[in-house]
């Protein structure tokens, strides 16, 4: 069992937990993920590490409530325990040698982007962060990004905070103005990452995208997290859990990944409703 040491509600659907897991905290680097189960018989879900504190032996995770498992997790309080917590899994984001980087995060993906931005900042790299949200209420981690970015652009779909529009608007503007990034690192909804790649393409800027497909074991056993890359005109199957989660954005078949991501959409909606009903009952 793994103890929840701290809980913070970042916005109505996004929650941050600090979990006591010294072995994971000791090893995790930006870009890696963990797998957890809330309780016995629970589902295994992957969540990217949002930060670690080696001294306290804690791992920070930030998640959005989307299905039954995240709903249950959202109801856990500090001092309570979760059943399983394993990691760090996947390959850490390659940051060596990067001097000028643009981080493009969308929604809860910003939680994963943040430790990467921090690591780059600590390395002395010039960090431009573009973070996008649907509206002001969903904004997270503004102060944290401010602290580690040389330039920060906050975008909202409805213009209720920061600038109006999606993340590709300032990205295109900067690239058009002649900004030369060594790398664009993008983390967020698949559709956003697809358009970040399309935006960067005419300028030839390398793009790394962090993928978060459906997984079970996370250790290279089940193959559920497979995705297709187009490498020099050839289709190659890769596994996000051991080969990723980061991939060359230009090679990823985003449309296929989006389709596969919806495999259990109905089930998730149903599970979420069930979990909500269960908690409503408890309240009554």
């Amino acid at each position, binding site marked *: 069992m793994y103890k929840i040491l701290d809980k913070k509600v970042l916005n109505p659907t996004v929650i941050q937990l600090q979990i006591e897991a010294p072995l*994971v905290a000791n090893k995790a680097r930006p870009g890696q993920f963990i797998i957890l189960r809330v309780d016995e018989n629970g589902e295994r879900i992957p969540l990217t590490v949002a930060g670690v504190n080696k001294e306290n032996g804690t791992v920070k995770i930030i998640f959005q409530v989307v299905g039954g498992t995240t709903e249950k997790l959202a109801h856990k309080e500090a001092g309570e325990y979760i059943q399983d917590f394993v990691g760090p899994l996947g390959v850490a984001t390659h940051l060596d040698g990067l001097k000028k980087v643009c981080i493009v995060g969308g929604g809860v993906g910003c939680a994963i982007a943040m430790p990467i931005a921090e690591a780059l900042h600590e390395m002395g790299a010039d960090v431009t962060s573009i973070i996008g949200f649907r509206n002001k209420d969903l904004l997270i981690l503004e102060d944290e990004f401010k602290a580690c970015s040389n330039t920060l652009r906050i975008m909202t779909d409805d213009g209720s905070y920061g600038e109006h529009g999606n993340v590709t608007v300032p990205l295109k503007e900067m690239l058009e103005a002649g900004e030369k990034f060594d790398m664009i690192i993008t983390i967020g909804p698949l559709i956003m990452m697809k358009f970040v790649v399309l935006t960067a393409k005419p300028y030839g800027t390398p793009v790394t995208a962090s993928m978060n497909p459906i997984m*079970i*074991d996370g250790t290279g*056993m*089940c193959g559920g997290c497979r995705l297709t890359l187009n490498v020099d005109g050839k289709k190659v*199957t890769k596994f996000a859990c051991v080969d990723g989660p980061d991939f060359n954005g230009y090679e990823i078949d985003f449309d296929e990944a989006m389709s*596969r991501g919806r495999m259990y959409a109905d089930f998730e909606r149903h*599970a979420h409703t069930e979990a909500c009903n269960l908690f409503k009952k408890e309240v009554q």
Partner: protein
Amino acid sequence: MAKANMSLTRNAMPTQDAQVRAHNFDEVALGYTEEMAIDEANRCLNCKHMPCVNGCPVKIHIPEFISKIKEGDFEGAYQIISKSSSLPAVCGRVCPQEVQCESKCVRGIKGESVGIGRLERFVADWHNTFATEAPERPASNGHRVAVVGSGPSGLTCAGDLAKKGYEVTVYEALHTAGGVLVYGIPEFRLPKKIVAKEVETLEQLGVKVETNVVIGKTLTIDELFDMGYEAVFVGSGAGLPNFMGIPGESYKGVYSANEFLTRSNLMKAYLDNPETPIMKGGKVAIVGGGNVAMDAARTALRLGAEKVYIVYRRSMEELPARKEEVEHAEEEGIEFRLLCNPTEIVGYNNPEDPRDPKNGFVTGIKCVKMELGEPDAKGRRRPVAIPDSEFEIEVDTVVISIGTSPNPLIKSTTEGLEVNAHGGIIVNEDGLSSRAGVYAGGDVVTGAATVISAMGAGKTAAKAIDEALSK
């Protein structure tokens, strides 16, 4: 002593009725009664040269334990088996006895061999039901050994070393110990409580089991040595599933057998109200002919499929699965589409509406008919496609069960560990790898193989580790 039973046929294994069991996850084979076991034991001639023992990868003293059954001393029989095997209740269920011990049985020359596997299962189940005394924990010899993976090879290695007084810690990446015995082999063939019981027995011997630790990630092999372990046995098992490389393998509804079985077994998607989803019902095609393919097919049926096909490119004769599993599958109504090779998986695409929720789901599998040609290097006749014989089977789910490659996590994080072209760790006859003190066995060495061969490898390595550390 009772008179030898000279019946040419063995005692039949009582099983659940095929029509009933096709709809539940309870165990198919029910096991011998005491009377059946004694009657079957009396068919053993107690041959002096013990050919059966040579057929056993872990060299169980077969005639000896069968003699105890004849006397009605079932616990005595268990004690004899447990000297050689750490997992008798498992082996009695999943070993391919017909090509091992039973294939060497003298009674098999004229008639059926003694049902050795069934007797082993009986003895282990009897012990697990009636034995009350916990096994005695041996005195520590002060040496510490780490075992990576709690599948059959790891558990065997851990058990053998613990019995000799080693302090053994088993590291398991998943949340439950047992490896393929819990994520892969389904409940109806190997109930999870039996695996849990075997693990418990090892814990009583002093073995520590640490779940949720991924060696190669959470801790490296080098760190294990830093922590004071004097030897490490790597039994991390099968890795990434193989796919066919045909169009359509990314459609929704295409699973590897590992994923399909893991969802159903380890994650309990077979329960009524599961938290882990699985596609069930409809028509299902399983590609492949091994034990894993049979497990996947029979799992799909029990999950509520209206029709399940095994699609295999060779004929019944080459089908690699254990005979009993094939018979059970046939009885349950699995349809074998033999000499068929998939060429494409077909999916639904509505060009009018990209948001159609059915888009991207499997609708069928295209196959080409095959005939057997010249034998290949292994002597198996190579299947050759018959021109213009393509046809399509309508299905909603496809499960690819054509093997796995060894797990990549350890080799990628351990310097100086040599692997072969397939990614399998290279070991010598003692299971020793190219790294001092690092031993390996099971699927991580051989690629997908059987439970008992992995156990054999765990046993060999335990012996070598003991010899190396007790010098």
